[in-house]
């Protein structure tokens, strides 16, 4: 969780991540952010995130992203 | 009552009310932007005649509109109406007649024959078509007449003929809203459909006028002949006599007259040509004074020929004596 938060805040220091459940829907993270973020996540957690995982449900909140990471780590 | 029903009634009442207000504004706007035209008025004024009082109906194009004066002929004891408009194609004449017969039961229909040779250009002639059609109420006859037009010209639409607002809406720019009063169509025509022309243009009879020069007879246009036949059949079904009447015209000829005479004989109806020498002499027209242009009588001319015509028709046909 902490690693994830660190990546997020470094990527977009101007965005409020805590408790935010509309990061994608409200347009706070755009497609460029997603691409950079995914790159970091893949490197840091040694997972493969394919384009099919880029849906709002997986990235709207920090919790959702964590769940995604954990699920992919198990596969 | 159940709440659902009350709700439904509430909505229904609202719709009716809204529609009523809508219809009023729609009529107001239509009358404001419509193109006013005395020919349209003359076509529409027909509805104001008391039902089944007209003995003779004159149907066709502008020579009738200008040249036939029913008020003049009334002295002979019969009522007539001129339901004609500029360059009216036989297809419109047919449907207009069919509609007219819903309101009147004349003994005689006098039909303008000259345009049986012409192929009608529905695309070019929208303005003239509207002279007749804008004066017709919405009816199955109007719809049929418009169908002929829309088939020939896809730019014109049924909707624009049934509701002239959709044709003339662009004229909003030419109207002084809030200042001018809207002018709805007139209820009645004081002149029984006649719209005379006061001006004069002196004419001269061309050389060899109405002499048999051995020319070939002109061909009848297929569509026009078709509708003429329909008109004749319609009249036959309703026990109405038909007279093809040609009014004085400088560009007329023996050949054209012969072609129509043949057609009339074929169809078993009467034909009277006012340019034939015999009749010309009886009419006593003065080409310097009585013509508006080579094809139309002016006011004095129309009275002259109507006086003659009134007497002729009374003796030739059993027209209702009042």
């Amino acid at each position: 969780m902490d690693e994830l938060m660190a990546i997020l805040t470094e990527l977009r220091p101007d965005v409020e991540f805590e408790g935010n459940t509309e990061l994608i829907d409200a347009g706070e993270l755009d497609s460029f952010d997603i691409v950079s973020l995914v790159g970091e996540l893949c490197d840091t957690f040694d997972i493969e995130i394919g384009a099919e995982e880029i849906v709002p449900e997986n990235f709207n909140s920090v919790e959702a992203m964590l769940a995604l990471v954990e699920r992919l780590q198990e596969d | 009552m159940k709440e659902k029903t009350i709700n439904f009634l509430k909505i229904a009442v609202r719709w009716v009310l809204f529609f009523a207000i809508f219809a009023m504004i729609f009529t107001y706007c239509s009358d404001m932007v419509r193109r006013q035209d005395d020919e349209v008025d003359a076509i529409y004024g027909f509805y104001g005649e008391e039902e089944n009082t007209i003995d003779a109906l004159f149907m066709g194009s502008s020579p009738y509109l200008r040249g036939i004066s029913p008020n003049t002929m009334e002295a002979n004891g019969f009522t007539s109406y001129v339901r004609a408009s500029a360059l009216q194609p036989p297809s419109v004449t047919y449907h207009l007649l069919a509609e007219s017969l819903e309101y009147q039961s004349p003994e005689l229909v006098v039909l303008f024959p000259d345009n049986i040779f012409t192929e009608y250009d529905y695309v070019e002639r929208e303005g003239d078509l509207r002279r007749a059609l804008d004066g017709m109420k919405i009816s199955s006859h109007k719809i049929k007449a418009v169908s002929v037009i829309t088939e020939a010209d896809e730019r014109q639409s049924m909707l624009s003929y049934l509701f002239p607002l959709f044709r003339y809406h662009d004229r909003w720019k030419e109207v002084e809203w809030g200042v001018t009063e809207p002018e709805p169509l007139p209820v009645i025509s004081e002149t029984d459909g006649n719209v005379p022309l006061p001006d004069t243009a002196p004419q001269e009879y061309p050389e060899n006028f109405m002499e048999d020069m051995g020319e070939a007879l002109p061909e009848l246009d297929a569509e026009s002949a078709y509708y003429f036949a329909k008109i004749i059949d319609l009249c036959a079904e309703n026990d109405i006599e038909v007279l093809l009447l040609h009014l004085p015209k400088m560009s007329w000829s023996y050949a054209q007259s012969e072609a129509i005479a043949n057609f009339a004989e074929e169809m078993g109806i009467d034909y009277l040509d006012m340019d034939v020498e015999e009749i010309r002499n009886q009419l006593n027209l003065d080409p310097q004074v009585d013509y508006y242009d080579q094809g139309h009588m002016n006011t004095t001319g129309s009275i002259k020929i109507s006086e003659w015509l009134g007497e002729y028709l009374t003796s030739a046909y059993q027209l209702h004596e009042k």
Partner: protein
Amino acid sequence: MSFTSVEFIIFLILVMMVYFLTPKRYRWVALFVANYVFYYFAGGGYFLYLILTTLSIYGATMVLDQMIGQNKRAFAQVKDELDREQKKLWKANFTKKKKKVLLAAVLFNFGILAVLKYSGFVGSNINAVFSGLSLGISVPTYDFLLPLGISFYTFQSIGYLIDVYREKQVPERNLAKVALFLSFFPQMVQGPISRFSQLAEQLYRPNAFSYDRAKFGVQLMVWGAFKKLVIADRARVIVDAIFGFPETFTGTYVAVGALVYCVQLYGDFSGGIDIATGAAQILGIDLEKNFERPYLATSIPDFWRRWHITLGAWFRDYVFYPLSLSKFSTKMGKKARKVFGNYVGKLFPVLIPQFIIFFLIGVWHGAEWKYIAFGFYNGTLIVLGILLEQPLSQLADKLGIKRQCFSWHLWQILRTLALVAVGKIITRAAGIGQSVSMLKSMVESWDTSILFGDGLLQFGLDVQDMWVLTIAILVLLAVSIMQETGISIRTTLAKQNILFRWVIYLIAIFTLFIFGVYGLEYDASDFIYRGF
């Protein structure tokens, strides 16, 4: 059957009656029939291509479904015995198998689209090269008539196919239902492009008639008709004049033409979308938004998130992410970081795909060199925007420019509008040559005096028409600003008193009737008496 024709209104009323009177179980069938009836009358019966696409997509999704099911069962049996590396290998192998099916269907369908849309263009250019080299040969070219909606339903079908491929969507097993999803009549004219997960359920379920929802739908359609008939078709007169006579209308006229074209295009496109969305809403179906006040955008990327939204979203989810997240792209990104440093390197996986996307969007518009130029223009703007974002904001900070205030916001909007307008010149001009000369003349012969006096009355619109256009645009602007601040016009209207609502309805209807640009032009001379 255009959206603003009487025929469409009659068709819609008939569909409404049939749909809501059909027993609930079969309502989707009624809709299916309605779609094909519409396609017959509006699309001239070019069913063949729609049917080919439907069948191929159905077939491919059924095959994939079977493959996926088999794979799941096989994997479940062995997964406990595999380690991480072996699992990855299994997954990769299966993906390769799936890809073959995907590729076949994608190539087939995009192939149809490409051939119909672009073969004429490609062919004639090849022939130009051949004749330039004085070779005696030439390839045959045909100018195909594009079937109705092909650009839209092809994308929608491929999106669905990819969702199935990604195992994110369980495919529909009923062929008729798939056909229904790919032929929904409101979408056939101008889109929007929908996703299966968003639209299918709405099409298949029995929607009940809702008076309030129908009211909203009709209101939206009237609004769309207003944008199209009163604004767009009027603006068009100006645009056609300026772009039709570029030698006469130079300098500031070009700017006027570009801006008015922006208005025309928005009015026409979003108006048509509103009519489509309103019609669907009456039937109980919500289509995705395609426009969100695009000219209030503050940057080019923001503009493309507000203009033709569903197309941009489609490219983002099915082209951009796959490209930028691909192994190739991440590898390139790492290399780029080493060569260009951290800043550009991070952006690299994004830059090339973005350029490709916007290039493709440009080309999607049509098969002409000017659309390729438009694609380059867009792509370059996007890339520059991405690259320069940080340096420019740092510069602004250094200069002490405030960026949270209204004046800056306004500047951003105007700047974006200018860039968009230039792009529109490229697409509207007859060819690249004309757009270049028009842009040149705009700079060289700039003369704002034409805006005063009679300069703006030379296009064929008289003073009164210009006033109508201006007021209509102001109304549109007011509505847009209200919507931008979150007000929903239709719900707010519904809350007002009935008298006020009726006044608005009557004004709207009669505005369309009287000020709409439709029917034959009224030319008094046509009506002048012509005796014979």
